C-alpha cells in the first residue's frame, strides 16, 4: 500500500517533467442556450490511459468530439506535443494522429470488415482499389490485436457487438502511421459480460503496446481496471483529476455528483 503511494507520487513528479501529448487550455463550447463545456484545462501524457467519467450531459462526448475535429471550440486552445494546433475537421485530427471510436461505432453495416477498416482511406493502385493489400493488412492488424473474426468478407452488420467494437477499434488504430491518441466513447456500454471482457483485454493490449488512450465510461469497475488516471467532468467543468492508485470508487462518484449530495 505504501509502495503504491510512493510509486504514484513518483509518477506525478515524472509526469510533470514530461511533455504532454495533448493539452487543452480553456476549452469552452456552447450549443444554443446550453454551455456544454466551461473552460476545461487538462493534459494527457504519452502512453497513459485516461478514464474520462461524468454524469450524462457532463460534456464528455462534446470534449472528445472537439479533440476529434467534429466540433470547433468556442474558446480555448489545443496543443499537441507542445505545439499549438487548429483542428477544424475530422481529417485534421486524423492527420495529427488522433483517432476516435464513437459510441455508435460509425460502421457501415452493409459493407464487409475490410471495407469498414479502411473506410474513407481505401488503398488504391492508380485508379483501382487495392483489395488484396487491404485484405492482407486487415488480417495482419486484427491478428496483432488478437481479434478473431471468422470471415473478413462478412458484412459487419451480422457480427456480434463485441466484434463490431473490435473492428471499430481496429479502424481507429490502423489509420496509416502509428496512432498518437485513441479516444473511445463508451466502448463496452452495449456489450454483455463476456464481450466486455474481450474488449477490455484489447484495451489493455493496446496500452501494453504503448498507445495513449482516453476511455469514456460510466462503469466504475471498467474504468478502474484499465485507467492510469481518471478525470471527472461535471456540468461542463473539470472537477477532479486523480491517479487511479490514489483514489477510490466512492471518491470518484462524489466528484461526479458533487460531494454535497453524499
Amino acid at each position, binding site marked *: 500500500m505504501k509502495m503504491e503511494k510512493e510509486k504514484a507520487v513518483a509518477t506525478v513528479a515524472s509526469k510533470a517533467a514530461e511533455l504532454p501529448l495533448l493539452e487543452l487550455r480553456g476549452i469552452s463550447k456552447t450549443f444554443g442556450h446550453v454551455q456544454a463545456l466551461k473552460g476545461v484545462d487538462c493534459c494527457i501524457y504519452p502512453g497513459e490511459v485516461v478514464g474520462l467519467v461524468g454524469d450524462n450531459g457532463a460534456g464528455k462526448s462534446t470534449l472528445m468530439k472537439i479533440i476529434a475535429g*467534429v466540433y470547433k471550440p468556442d474558446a480555448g486552445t489545443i496543443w499537441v506535443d507542445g505545439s499549438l494546433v487548429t483542428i477544424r*475537421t*475530422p*481529417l485534421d485530427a*486524423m492527420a495529427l494522429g488522433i483517432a476516435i471510436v*464513437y459510441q*455508435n*461505432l*460509425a*460502421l*457501415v*453495416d*452493409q*459493407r464487409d470488415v475490410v*471495407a469498414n477498416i479502411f*473506410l*474513407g*482511406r*481505401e488503398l*488504391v493502385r492508380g*485508379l*483501382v*482499389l487495392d483489395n488484396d493489400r487491404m485484405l492482407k493488412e486487415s488480417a495482419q492488424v486484427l491478428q496483432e490485436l488478437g481479434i*478473431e473474426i*471468422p*470471415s473478413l*468478407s*462478412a458484412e459487419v*452488420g*451480422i457480427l456480434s457487438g463485441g466484434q463490431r467494437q473490435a473492428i471499430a477499434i481496429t479502424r481507429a488504430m490502423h489509420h496509416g502511421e502509428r496512432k498518437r491518441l485513441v479516444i473511445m466513447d463508451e466502448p463496452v456500454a452495449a456489450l454483455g459480460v463476456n464481450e466486455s471482457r474481450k474488449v477490455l483485454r484489447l484495451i489493455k493490449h493496446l496500452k501494453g503496446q504503448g498507445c495513449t488512450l482516453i476511455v469514456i465510461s460510466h462503469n466504475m469497475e471498467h474504468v478502474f481496471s484499465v485507467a492510469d488516471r481518471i478525470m471527472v467532468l461535471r456540468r461542463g467543468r473539470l472537477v477532479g483529476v486523480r491517479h487511479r492508485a490514489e483514489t477510490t470508487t466512492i471518491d470518484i462518484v462524489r466528484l461526479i455528483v458533487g460531494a454535497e449530495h453524499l
Partner: protein
Amino acid sequence: MDRDNMDQKKRRLAVRNIFLKREISILGAAVLLFFGLSLATPHFLRIDNLLLVARQISILAIIAIGMTFLFIAREIDLSVGSMYGFLVVVLAFLISRTTLDPWVAMGVVIIAGASLGLLNGLLTTLFGMPSFIVTLGMLSILRGSSLLLTGGWPIIIRTSEDHSFLNFTAGYAGGVVPTQIFWMISLMLIGGFFLGKTRFGAHVYATGGNEEAARLSGIPVKRVKTVCFMITGALCGIAAALLLGQVRSGFPLTGAGFELDIIAAVVIGGTPLFGGRGSILGTLLGASITGMITNGLVLLGASAYFEPVAKGSIIIIAVLINTLTRRKYA
C-alpha cells in the same frame, strides 16, 4: 473447440454470401423468363426479335446506370424521364435550328444533362432537401420546358442519311447488331468499373450505407452524391442522342413516365432504395427482365393496357422476394 466454432461460422457465412449474391437469384429469374417466353411463343427466339428487345433495353439501361449509383447512395432522381425528354428536344433543336455539327451538339447536350444533374445535386445536398422532392419539382419543370421550347410540336432533324451521327447512334454494326447495344455495354462496363473498383465507388456505397459514418471518416458525402446526380444527367444526354438518332425527331412528350421503368429496372435488379447495396450487373438483369416482359406481352397478343399492370406487379413481387430473403438471414 474454438476452432470448430470458427469453421462452423465460416461455412455459414460462405453459404449466406452466395445467397446474398442477389445477382445469382435475379439471373435465375431472367433465365427462367427467357425460357418461359421461348416456350410460350415461337416469335421470341427469332434473331430480329431478340435484337429488337436488346435495342429497347439499351436506352433504359443506360439511364438506369445513373439511377443505380443514386440508389446506392440512398438518393433518387424522379426527373430522369423528363430530363431525357427535354434533352432529346434540345438536341433536335440544336441540330435542326443551328449550324452545330450533330456530334458537337451531342456533347453540348451531355454537358447540359450533367449541369441539370449538378443542379439536382446542389439543391439536395446544400439545402438538405429530400431528393425526392427536388427531383419531383424538376420533373415538372423540365416537362414544361420541353413543351415551351417546342410549342408542343415535334422538332424534326434533317441530317443526311449517311452522317456518322445517325450511323453510330442508331445504325447496325455489320448490318445486323444495333449500335445501341454497344453503347449500353460500354457504358455499363465503365459504370460498373467506377462503382465496383474505384475509391469513388466505395464512397458511394459508404455514403448510402451509413452517411454519418461516412462523413465522420472524412468522405465528402455531399460531393459524392452530387457527382452521382451529374452522372445520371450526363447519361440522360447520351440516351437522348441515341433516341434522336433512331426516331429523327424531338417529340416533347418523350420519356413521360419513363422514370418508373428505370426505377423498376434498378429495383428488380436487386438494388434496394435504402442505400449501401446494388450493382450495375443487377440493373442490367433488371432491365432485361422488364424488356422481356414488355416484348413478351406484345408477342403474346396481350392488351397494351395490361403492360403497366404486369410491370407494377413484377416490381412488387421482386422487392418482396428481396426483402424476405434479406430478413431471413438478418
